[in-house]
């Protein structure tokens, strides 16, 4: 549906925002604008509006001039900043965007929230779905303000303005320096042999391109409803990295070494290649009382369907993995394998982190090893994305393994460039 909408990407020069702009352009959109505090990219076909999200007049200016009909709000300050900045960008800024959208009659607003809004740092996030309420005690100022903004966005959903919030978990990919630098530093500091905890904690990491793709889907589908009967249809398992191999059956299988295939064999081979499944072969969707869509799956088909607007969605790669394996996979992309592995129990890790924090307080340096990081590296944090897969039709487009390669290749290039400029300087 290119061309039907005029898009304004708020924070369009940021890590995720940039990927969204690129995907919009790649699918042939002609009305794409960006609103950001600084301009980092220069495209001939993108109108750029510079301004401060915390200032209503700046936001109004961008929305008015861009004639936006759909706003994708991805702006968010980097982690590790001051709480006042979070408050200003996440809360005040988001308020301004919502108010402005309502004033100017914008029809659609998609907000980039974070999976962290339901994480309090103490409880394990085990295959959770969107029913989980916000924690009573938020993890930190960042996640508190993100949750506040998400609530405002979802509350604003109405006849005039359709809204939804996407909650990506652990975004990585080309353009991210923060996370990869953290992992890269561990090699530099020669600390890859240390592992805190038993490495049985499962974690979600999400390729940035997939998150951007989910945003496009959300804008497209915001005014639609999901038919109740579809809740009873199965969804395929995600095999991006493991490689999807269809299991052959007597109904659908390749010819293989069959030298004299019959008509029935050819039909079976056709069915196998087409990826179509017989109706009867569809696995039944079993839902128990505790299932998130248990009630919806029992509703009549002729009812209006499940709304997509006004909802929050977790967005992940659908391939959660054990935390330390992700780190090791990154390191191996840099040609590094830990010589051996020392597993430090969580309790000792916490004590060491406390000491490290105290030490860095004394020396005034930024601590690299903190209790927060120990918690991150030892807790479960993975999500159930059935809601996004069903309602938005979201499927990860790039698997974890491929995404990781793209990310590290890009970063290697960046490191090269950095080295280049350094040698130039010394010249």
């Amino acid at each position: 549906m290119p061309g039907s909408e005029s898009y304004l990407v708020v924070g369009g020069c940021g890590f995720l925002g940039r990927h969204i702009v690129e995907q919009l352009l790649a699918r042939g959109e002609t009305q794409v604008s960006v609103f950001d505090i600084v301009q980092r990219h220069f495209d001939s076909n993108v109108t750029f509006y510079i301004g401060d999200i915390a200032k209503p007049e700046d936001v109004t200016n961008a929305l008015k001039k861009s004639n936006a009909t759909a706003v994708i709000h991805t702006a968010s300050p980097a982690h590790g900043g001051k709480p006042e900045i979070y408050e200003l960008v996440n809360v005040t800024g988001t308020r301004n965007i919502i108010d402005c959208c309502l004033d100017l009659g914008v029809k659609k607003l998609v907000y980039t929230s974070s999976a962290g809004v339901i994480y309090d740092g103490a409880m394990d996030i085990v295959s959770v779905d969107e029913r989980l309420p916000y924690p009573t005690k938020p993890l930190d100022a960042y996640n508190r303000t993100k949750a506040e903004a998400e609530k405002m966005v979802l509350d604003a959903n109405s006849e005039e303005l359709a809204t939804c919030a996407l909650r990506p978990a652990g975004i990585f990919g080309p353009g991210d320096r923060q996370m990869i630098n953290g992992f890269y530093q561990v090699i530099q500091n020669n600390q890859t042999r240390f592992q805190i905890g038993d490495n049985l904690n499962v974690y979600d990491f999400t390729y940035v391109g997939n998150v951007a793709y989910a945003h496009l889907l959300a804008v497209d589908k915001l005014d639609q409803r999901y038919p109740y009967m579809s809740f009873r249809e199965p969804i395929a398992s995600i095999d991006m990295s493991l490689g999807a191999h269809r299991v052959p059956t007597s109904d659908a299988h390749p010819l293989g070494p069959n030298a004299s295939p019959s008509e029935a064999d050819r039909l079976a081979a056709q069915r196998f290649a087409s990826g179509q499944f017989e109706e009867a072969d569809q696995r039944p969707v079993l839902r128990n009382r505790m299932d998130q869509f248990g009630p919806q799956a029992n509703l009549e088909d002729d009812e209006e369907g499940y709304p997509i607007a006004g909802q929050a969605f977790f967005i992940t790669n659908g391939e959660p993995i054990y935390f330390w394996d992700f780190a090791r996979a990154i390191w191996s992309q840099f040609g590094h394998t830990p010589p051996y592995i020392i597993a430090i129990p969580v309790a000792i890790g916490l004590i060491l982190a406390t000491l490290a924090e105290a030490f860095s307080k004394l020396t005034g340096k930024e601590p690299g090893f903190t209790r927060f990081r120990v918690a991150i590296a030892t807790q479960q944090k993975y999500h159930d994305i059935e809601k996004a897969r069903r309602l938005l039709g979201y499927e990860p487009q790039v698997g974890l393994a491929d995404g990781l390669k793209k990310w590290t290749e890009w970063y290697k290039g960046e490191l090269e460039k950095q080295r280049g400029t350094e040698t130039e300087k010394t010249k």
Partner: protein
Amino acid sequence: MGRLDTILQFLTHPTELRAVINYKIWRDVRDITKPEEFPTTFYDRPTMRRCWELLDLTSRSFAVVIKDVEGDLARTICIFYVILRALDTIEDDMTLPNSVKLPMLRSLHLKLHEPGWNFDGSGPNEKDRQVLVEFDVVQAEFALLDPKYQVVIEDIARKMGRGMADFAALATPQTPVAEVNSIDDYDLYCHYVAGLVGEGLSGLFASSGKEREFLADQLTLSNSMGLLLQKTNIFRDIKEDVDEGRGFWPRAIWGAHGFASMKELVDPEREKDALFAASEMVLDALRHATDALDYMTLLKCQSVFNFVAIPAVMAMATLERCFMNPEIFRRNVKIRRGEAVKLIMRSVNPRDVSYIFRDYARNIHRKVHKEDPNLLKLSIACAKIEQWTEHHYPSFLSISAGSGGGGIQTQIDQYTSDARAPLYAQMYKDAQEKASRERREAYIADLRKRGILKAEKTDEAGEKKEVAQLNTPGDNELKMWHVVAMIVAVLVAMVGLGALIVWVILTYFND
């Protein structure tokens, strides 16, 4: 296995010794030879008796689980199994020229209707050759099966024979058993030799009425069950197969690790690469694990469930035992008998089976070598099983048999760190409140219907009051009065009795 080995194993794994003892004492294994079982096992009929003996002869592990399936299904599966063994024996036989082998494979299903057909041309080393030598016995019993079973068995035998022949036709004088090349070929081969068994079993379960009808059409999941088991065996049997001049590991896997032939895999010099190839074999087998779990959640008959689940957990245990284990290139590695017994005892419902799967997945993940080229994929595959388990059977819920009533009780582990626990507790509470509200409403509606409660009374407060008067609190008050009255009565009686004694003493002994 030597007796000393067994003793050593039990000394190092005491819980397994306990499991074995428990198993011997408590597990009711169906004895098909008992007269009261004759109506379904037909052990008293010489031909069927011979079929049961052939089953024992050809299968070590399956015989026990097959016999334990309830009713006539055990006998049906026994005949199905023995017929498949016949196909397998022809396929395996390296002494048979293809000019004999291929037509035989393609036509064995027809022999099911040919009384008296036997074949004694199998190689002398074919351990199951007796099945073909006495095929007339099997045929006789097949002919006595309910036609609904015959259709399924014959159909599978036909498809399997054709598929086996397709692959056997690739043989050349240099390689009497053709190598499997791509993953697609590997999947297809496993479909013919094992996936079809899964399809057939689903068909038999459904026709027997012990499982729901739709199970027969669940072809993908049925094949996944078969593929998980078959791939485990192919992976484990590498040494034995290579020694016999064959091997079913796909070239796509071992070729990618720098091997020119499968023989090189058992070369001690190249153990490290061979292990990485082996690890990729496990990765490929794990693809079917969550499908297998899906399949098991569809079953409702306990003995069918056990029959399906026991081999599946054994496969997971074998994958774990053989994963990154260089011994597989030297000998046939098996799981300990005690471990097997423990698994049999635990594999009774999909919840526990999924926990067994998860535990083995974790152990596999733990053993992944840090240099394994498939480290990330193995991690994804294992975590996938973990997520399946937590999604279907959250581990913070503990399920126990209720005391007295025999109902099942679900409890939320109060020390869990799972963020979902409070949500589930709240949902449970809401559901209970809703149920009690509905009960109350139904009660009121009933009272209205019987005219005890005036129908026109719509004022809710008044209605509640009226109900309250009619309802249990009134009864309770009544009961309370009974109790109080009884206590008072007893007190009065005791005081009276005391007074009487005093009066008697004072009257008669007052001298």
